[in-house]
Every structure is written in C-alpha cells, then in structure tokens.
C-alpha cells in the first residue's frame, strides 16, 4: 500500500489465534525434573557445583535407600502422614462447612468474614505454644495447628465458590418449587465444587508446610523432626532426602485432587 507502483502481491493472512488453552502434555513435567537433577548430578561430579552448595543427587538417593532399609523411613513417615491426614481432614471439613454457611447466610457472612480475614494472615506456627497449652504437647496440638492452618484458606475458597454459583440456576430451582435443602444439595454444592477443589489444592500444600513446622518444634519422629536433625548437623544429604519426601507428598496430593476433579467434574471439560 505504501508503494503504489508495484503490483500488490497477495499476502497470506498471518495466523494470530490459538493459545490460551492449556493441553495435557504428559512427559514435560517429568522431563523438567530429570533435567534439573541431571544438571546437579553432573555439576557436583565435575566440581563446578561445590559439595557445600548442593549434595550429589545420587548420594541423596543412597541416603534414601538407607532410610528405607533401616526402617526409619516409615518410623518417620507414618506419624507424619497420620498427623497430616487427621489435621487436614478436620481443618478442611470445618472450613468447607463454615464456607458454605458464609455463602448461604448473610448473618454468618457478616460475622465470620472479618474474623477469617483477621485469622488468615497470622502465621499459625506462631500460635504453636498456645496450642501446646490448650491441647498438650502430644499429637492433639499438632492436629490443631494443621487443622487451623487448612481451615482459613478452605473457608475463603469455599465461600467464594458458593458466591460464584450461577444465580439463574438457583432461580430455576425456586421456580420449580424445589425445597431449600434440595437447592443447596443439588444446585449450590455441585456448582461450588470446582472452586472448593481448587481451594483444597492450596489448603493441603499449607497443611504440609505446617506439618513440618509443628514437627520441628516438638516431635521425636516425623519428617519435620528428621529434617531438623539433619539441618542442625548440616547433613545436606539427609536434609534433601527429607525435602524430597515432602515434595513427593505434595505431588501425590495434587495428583489425587486432579484425579478427583476428573472424576466428579467431568461435566466441565
């Protein structure tokens, strides 16, 4: 157009659509892990990563093997898993119930939302001494800490999800004379489920963080105690072995939620 003397050549229209649609790319995640670990292994072997900076991945694996053979792995893992399961279950279920109540009742909302906003930013670990006084030095205080930490993000995610349920569907339920309970059970809850589940991903990651924190402050066995002990001795191999266990735990929980999402949210796709 700028040069009128040349006969204008047809130009193929430039493609500018596409993207913004995440697709399943199966092996990429694994590849990133393998790549990073591979680089670390080569680096530590060749010496351009000093052994003080990072442990050799193969040594970490060996430490892991020792843990397994000596039976210590399960001695640490089982108390941790049961703390996580009990604490997170209590916290998440109370959180979902309270979140739904906030979503449904204006008075509960007016009363609870500021309270939740006040509790949310408190580092829950700072309250551990308080929980020890309330619930004793044993397991109960750790359950309480994990439960408390999972509670707040679950509440926020849940009432947000309830707020986002399509009001026209609720009007439809009312127009067909459905009972209040039916509307909540058959329209509000399934409609809020995507939001609740994505909130659970965050809550469960926070539960793992708090599990370790609680175990660092007072536990004989547990992954947190194991990491703390390794850390105070600057035993990087064992420290990393503990950290890897936590990462694996996170990946497993996230996979489980992904599986649940695919099962019960198949209608979205």
């Amino acid at each position, binding site marked *: 157009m700028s040069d009128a003397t040349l006969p204008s050549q047809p130009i193929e229209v430039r493609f500018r659509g596409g993207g913004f649609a995440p697709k399943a790319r199966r092996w990429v995640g694994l590849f990133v892990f393998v790549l990073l670990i591979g680089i670390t292994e080569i680096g530590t072997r060749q010496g351009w990563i000093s052994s003080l900076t990072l442990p050799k991945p193969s040594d970490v694996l060996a430490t892991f093997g020792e843990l397994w053979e000596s039976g210590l792995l399960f001695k640490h893992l089982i108390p941790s898993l049961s703390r996580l399961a009990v604490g997170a279950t209590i916290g998440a279920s109370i959180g979902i119930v309270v979140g739904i109540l906030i979503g449904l009742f204006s008075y509960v909302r007016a009363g609870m939302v500021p309270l939740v906003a006040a509790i949310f930013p408190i580092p829950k670990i700072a309250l551990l001494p308080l929980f020890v006084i309330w619930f004793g030095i044993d397991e109960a205080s750790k359950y309480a800490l994990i439960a408390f930490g999972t509670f707040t993000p679950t509440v926020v995610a849940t009432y947000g999800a309830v707020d986002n349920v399509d009001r*026209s569907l609720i009007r439809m339920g009312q127009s*067909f004379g459905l009972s209040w309970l039916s509307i909540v059970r058959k329209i509000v809850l399934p409609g809020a489920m995507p939001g609740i589940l994505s909130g659970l991903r965050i809550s469960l990651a926070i539960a793992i963080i708090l599990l370790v924190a609680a175990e660092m402050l007072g536990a004989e066995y547990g992954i947190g105690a194991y990491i703390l002990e390794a850390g105070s001795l600057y035993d990087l191999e064992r420290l990393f072995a503990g950290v890897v266990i936590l990462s694996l735990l996170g990946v497993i929980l996230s996979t489980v939620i992904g599986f649940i999402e695919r099962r019960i949210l198949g209608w979205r796709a």
Partner: protein
Amino acid sequence: MDIRLDAISHSYGDTEVLRDISLDIPNGKIVCLVGPSGCGKSTLLRLIGGLERPSKGRVLQVGSPPEGCLNPLTFVFQDFALLPWRSVQGNISLVLEDHGIKGAQADAIITDVLARTKLSDFSKALPRQLSGGMKQRVAIARALAVKPAVMLMDEPLSALDSQTRELLMDDLVALWTRQFFTAAYVTHNLAEAVRLGHCIVVLSRRPGEIREIVEIDMPLADRSHGNAKLEQVQKHLWDMMRDEARAADEELLDV
C-alpha cells in the same frame, strides 16, 4: 386455570418499571407480551411466577390447576438454566425428585416428555454436548414434566439463531395443538408474537403500561411463515412500537 393480574405496579427503588397492569391470561391460550427493551416485560413474568413481589397489586390464580399438576407456574428461561453436571435425563428428574417421584414413575414421565420434544435419543447427553436449540427443548421438556397449568416463557427463543428459532416455533405450535397449554410468552420479536400468540399485549416503554391488546383469531396451525394477514398485524405492532423503542433506546444511552 386462569391467571389474573390485578392493577400491578412495580418499582426498583425510585425507578418505576411497571404501572397499573391489569390483564387476564385465559386457560388454554398463549398470551404474548411484547414491548421495547427495558419496559419490564420480564419483570412482569417474574411477578406472575412468584419470583418477585409486586410493589402494588396482586397476581391471582383463578380456578384450580389441572389434576396431576406438580408445579402450576413453570418457567422456561432464555438462558435455558440447565444444570451442566446433570444429563438431559438428570435435569428433568431434578424437578420430579422433590415431589417424591422416583424410579419407574419418573422414567415414564421422562420418556414421555423427551418423546414429545423429540429428544429420546439424547437422554444421557450432558448439556455441553447439545446445541442451543436442543438445550431449549430440554428446558421445555423439563417444564412439561411437571404438568404446568401455565407456562411462563421468558424470551425462550432469543438466544437461538433464526433457523433454529423457526424450527422451535413449529415445535411449540405442534406441542400446543396436540395438547392445549396456557402460556405467558415474553418476547421482543414480533414475528414470534404473531406466530404464537392468541393475543398480544403491547407494553409501552418504562414505566411499562398496557398500550394495546391485539387479538389474532387464526388457529395457530394455520399461521405459516410469510402469511399476509400476520404480516399486517406485525406491521401494525411495529408501527405502534417503533417510536417507543427508539425513545427507550435513547433513554438507556442516557443512563
């Protein structure tokens, strides 16, 4: 069962949307409500269906609903309002479950209404797998399942393309001819109104008042696309509405 509107007025805060509407919706007839956008025709339908309370006046049911009627006043919504997590069948059983209708009895009703709306092959499909026209047919099937005394149809065809709209209009006429139903049908599409309405109520722009009630005494089955007499009625309606619609349009731009 007839519906009688007795001097209905309605306002949202300081905004008056409906003023002094008195109207009868007689049994077995389709009454179309037309008017410029924002004239409160959808609000009027929600008032009739009990989803909102009128500021003044009353909505009365005259006579008792027919036997076996589960939900006398039943809506068909513009956006279909189907639960995306339930199949076609599940969406219909949703409105039966609360009346304690389950199992074989529910299956019989579902099979019947799906057959009447030509959806029998799609009972297991999820809403996302259906086209717009099919979704609205599911919503109509769901409405039929509760054996309504009066169907309240809120622009049921407005979200559909014009071809689908023609087909669904034929379907509605066929449904009505097979078994008379009573309906209040809100639309902004005059072609729909003259095709389906036994009587057409023209509302003025906000605050909505009844400007004129046009009766068309031609059987629904005889009204075909491009019928001269219907075109004449439609032109008359449009002449009446044009200035109102323009004024309403400019009014909305002001806000």
